């Protein structure tokens, strides 16, 4: 188990390192960063001084080293657009994304799991069909379009919730549903097929033969075992929700990290972009690592390997 965890930790570390390298290379490929900071009125002196401050007079590997050293200390330099430290901006925007992510995650579990159980238990009935349609839409509709359609219908036409921004408590409903639908669909399918497998097993037949009522069978015997695949999937979900927030936050003008990343990207604000991408990767990698640990804990085959 220790060996397994050590490997996973190493992987997380290598991932972070490669992302930082990609980001660093990209920022250098895009041109001299001084072009962003300095305008036409600056002198050659300014240009050289800036180069010294940013370390541009040193070889690339040393520049990358400097970047890494700063990153470890949580220092990503100063945002060009906002003219204040990147870390400050990122920390300011993080809570909104974490809030949206956790509400969407809860939505995907609270909708996906019960519907999955219902679809399996009532296999072949209209309920199963409804479940199938929800899953199919969730897995085929592009989230950005789904969000726009929900916005048009519930916010513009019916006026039930605010169309965008983060004001009242109810402004989170549409973004969370949009973000969570895909994963709700995935959970639904996973729980359904796991449930069907379990319901078909010998010990369930034995329980039925003994005369245990079907409610107890479903909740006590079948459901617990059917939970393993969606639990495994939860890790993937947590990580991917972070990425999904890019699109959903753009659609609903949600003031989180996803929108910040897009803003930084189109403003060519590289220091800010680097900070956001590294933060995203950190969140992603942490979620994956936590799930790996949980997984090892749940699955004895990994624990004792």
């Amino acid at each position, binding site marked *: 188990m220790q060996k397994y965890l050590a490997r996973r930790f190493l992987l997380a570390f290598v991932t972070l390192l490669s992302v930082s390298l990609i980001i660093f290379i990209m920022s250098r490929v895009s041109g001299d960063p001084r072009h962003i900071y300095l305008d036409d009125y600056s002198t050659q002196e300014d240009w050289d001084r800036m180069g010294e401050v940013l370390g541009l007079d040193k070889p690339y590997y040393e520049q990358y080293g400097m970047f890494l050293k700063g990153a470890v200390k949580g220092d990503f330099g100063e945002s060009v657009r906002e003219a204040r430290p990147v870390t400050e901006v990122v920390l300011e925007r993080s809570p909104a994304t974490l809030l949206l992510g956790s509400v969407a995650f809860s939505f995907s579990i609270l909708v996906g799991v019960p519907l999955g159980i219902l679809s399996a238990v009532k296999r072949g009935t209209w309920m199963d069909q409804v479940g199938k349609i929800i899953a199919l839409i969730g897995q085929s*509709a592009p989230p*950005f*379009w789904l969000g*726009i359609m929900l916005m048009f219908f519930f916010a513009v036409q019916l006026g039930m919730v605010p169309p965008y921004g983060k004001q009242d408590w109810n402004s989170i409903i549409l973004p969370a549903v949009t973000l969570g639908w895909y994963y709700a669909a995935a959970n639904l399918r996973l729980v359904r097929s796991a449930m069907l497998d379990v319901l078909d097993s010998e010990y369930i037949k034995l329980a039925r033969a003994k005369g245990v009522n079907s409610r107890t069978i479903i909740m006590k015997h079948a459901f617990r075992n059917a939970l393993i695949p969606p639990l495994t999937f939860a890790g993937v979900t947590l990580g991917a929700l972070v990425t999904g927030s890019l699109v959903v936050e*753009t659609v609903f003008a949600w003031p989180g990290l996803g929108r910040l990343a897009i803003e930084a990207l189109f403003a060519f604000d590289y220091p800010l972009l680097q900070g956001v991408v590294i933060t995203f990767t950190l969140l*992603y990698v942490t979620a*994956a690592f936590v799930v790996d640990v949980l997984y090892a804990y749940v699955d004895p085959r990994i624990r004792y390997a």
Partner: protein
Amino acid sequence: MAADLSGIVIAPPTFGEKVAGIYRKLKRLPVIPVFLLSLVVIAGLFAPVLAPHDPEKGDLRERNIPPAWSSGESEPKTVVERMSINDRATSVTLSDAKKVNPDAQIGDQIDIYTRPAGSTKFLLGTDHLGRDVLSRVIYGARISLLVSIVTLAVGGSIGVTMGLMAGWYGGAMDEFLMRLVDIKLAIPLILIALVLVITLGQSLWIIVTVLCLFIWPRFARQVRGEVLQLKHMDYVSLAKVSGASTARILFIHIFPGTINTLIVVATLQVGIVILLESTLSFLGAGVPPPTPAWGSMVSDGRDKLAGGVWWISTFPGLAIMITVMSLNLFGDWLRDTLDPRLRQLE
């Protein structure tokens, strides 16, 4: 004594039975997804013939016209000679009124369209620049098809080659390639893709390259798993004994054994590629405008929704959803048909 069968006539199937028989056969084939997919392919191939208008040029005077079936909205307005800012909502100038009704006089009440009715000239309406939405949706299929075919060919080949090598050589090679796959799975790729496209420039080929980064690992993993099983087969050992080169064994003897699985994986990956490409377009990092791509069309219509202009975003989005949904259904069917072993993996 032989039974006398001469009087027995087998009744020909009734019409109902025939229909039921055809239905039973068709039920096995996913008719609707196949039909919808062929529509998309035909739209992509024959876009110039099928599209009623130029997808990139529009007449601003014909902007925001709703789809053909929607009726316009009209309001009664008073005809005045000169209009002040305050009564713009309730009045109309004489010259404008004459365009609607040549007999209009000052002081008349006249019905003026505040929103035009749909016309059969633009079946799905026009966008904010007066371009025909239907033509743009039809042309949009081209971009999606082109991107997914090229991505699949390039990304798929890379993935298959990597998978073949990892499975065949094992050891350090396998370890390295599979760690590469792990890293890819742990990176928020859409973000990296955005950064790449924005810094390197928005062109079709850069987008295809970036999308290839997304899809090769799935192929590599699948093929590697198959190779691990196939390489211990007798016919592989025989080929080795008779002196076939490694490349020959891999591509002539092992690769064909993985084709069934590959077809399934490829079908499902096309759906993912189309979703990713449209996401990039939506975020503004897709094929540059004015080339019609479904994702950017949805984005175009986004800020027109508040004014009730819903058709610009709706139709291209529906096209994406229908295409991806058909691919998923078709892929599921292929999986059940070609490779029953995959069914349990869901």
